[in-house]
């Protein structure tokens, strides 16, 4: 098979080598060349200036791409930086105070992370890893704020299924009397929380199965988010 192939190839080579190619007369080619050179006089400037324009366009295009990349990079930094600050703040709080805070509760302000935990405003400067704790200041609530806070409380899942202690049955405190509504302002973050105090029943004591005490329960309402904050 291989020998046969080889023979065929040799035969084809022989055929192709034997082909005589009719030469084009040199005068004819010279004529075409002269025509082209005459045409080239017009074309040369056009092609070279076009090349220059293409080079300028390519340069501008490259600069444009670089500018777009830089802008995108800067924007990505703007969006990702707060996330990294939140991560660092959560880490510092966990290490120094032993609390675990959720990233969504951390407010980032000028590279400083602020979180409200147990009615304290904890400010963490991640550069020098310092922690400052502030108590909220009481402020005068408007009627509108009061109504909104009460409405959030009455409609909340937390009030409708209030569990006093783990293991005790849930109770609905959403329709109970409201004893007080107080505005709390956290100075560093300017965050406002509204404290709503209402009543609930304590769990029945073991000795007197039917005796239940009325107790006061405190709810913290975040009216910006429309939620109850623990």
């Amino acid at each position, binding site marked *: 098979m291989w020998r046969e192939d080889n023979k065929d190839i040799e035969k084809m*080579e022989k055929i192709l080598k034997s*082909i005589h*190619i009719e030469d084009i007369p040199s005068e004819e080619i010279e004529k075409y060349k002269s025509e*082209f050179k005459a045409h080239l006089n017009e074309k*040369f400037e056009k092609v070279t200036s076009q090349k220059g324009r293409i080079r300028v366009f390519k340069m501008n295009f490259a600069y444009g791409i670089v500018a777009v990349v830089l802008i995108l990079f800067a924007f990505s930094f703007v969006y990702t930086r707060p996330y990294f600050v939140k991560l660092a703040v959560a880490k510092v709080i966990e290490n120094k105070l032993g609390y675990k805070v959720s990233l969504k509760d951390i407010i980032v302000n000028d590279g400083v992370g602020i979180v409200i935990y147990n009615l304290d405003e904890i400010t963490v400067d991640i550069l020098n890893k310092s922690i400052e704790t502030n108590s909220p200041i009481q402020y005068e609530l408007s009627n509108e704020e009061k109504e909104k806070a009460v409405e959030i409380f009455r409609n909340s899942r937390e009030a409708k299924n209030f569990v006093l202690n783990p293991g005790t049955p849930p109770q609905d405190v959403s329709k109970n009397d409201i004893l007080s509504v107080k505005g709390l302002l956290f100075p560093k973050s300017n965050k406002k929380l509204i404290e709503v105090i209402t009543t609930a029943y304590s769990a029945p004591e073991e000795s007197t199965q039917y005796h239940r005490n009325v107790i006061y329960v405190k709810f913290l309402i975040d009216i910006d988010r429309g939620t109850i904050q623990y």
Partner: protein
Amino acid sequence: MDEHELIKKAIKDREAFGKIVDIYYKDVFKYIYRRTLDKEITKDLTQETFLNALKYFHTYREESSILFWLFGIATNVVNLHYRKEIDERKFFERYETHSKNNDSPDDNIDFKFIHRYITTLPEMEQVVLTLFFFENRTFQDIALILNRSVNSIRKTYYRGLKNLKRKLENDGYKF
């Protein structure tokens, strides 16, 4: 002035470019003619080859000669021309209208006859066979022109010969 200096000058200087045209026009024209067998088309494609050379002088690398570089450009220009022709289906019409007979192909064989078959081969095989048999270039030269390895050129060459033979046999020619 050596070839490379001439190229550097020709980018901006019309006289220097004219010199390149003077030196290489004939060779490029002949090569294109051997692939197209049409003087008018060859004239246009040669012109296109030199204008492309003027546009892309910055792509010229000193390791090959100007002639080989121009052959490379001419190869692309001719291939592009054939692709357009195939799109317009003219090529197939031309191929189908050639007379069929059962003579041995080496009786009265001429370039026009074999050219019809060569132009039906894949692009690279056409180029390699034309450069080898009708431009008398070596495998090394062809490798430089097409920017490929000598081995790959050799393989394309043998594949081209086999395909050419098969096409002749398919049309009833006996060896």
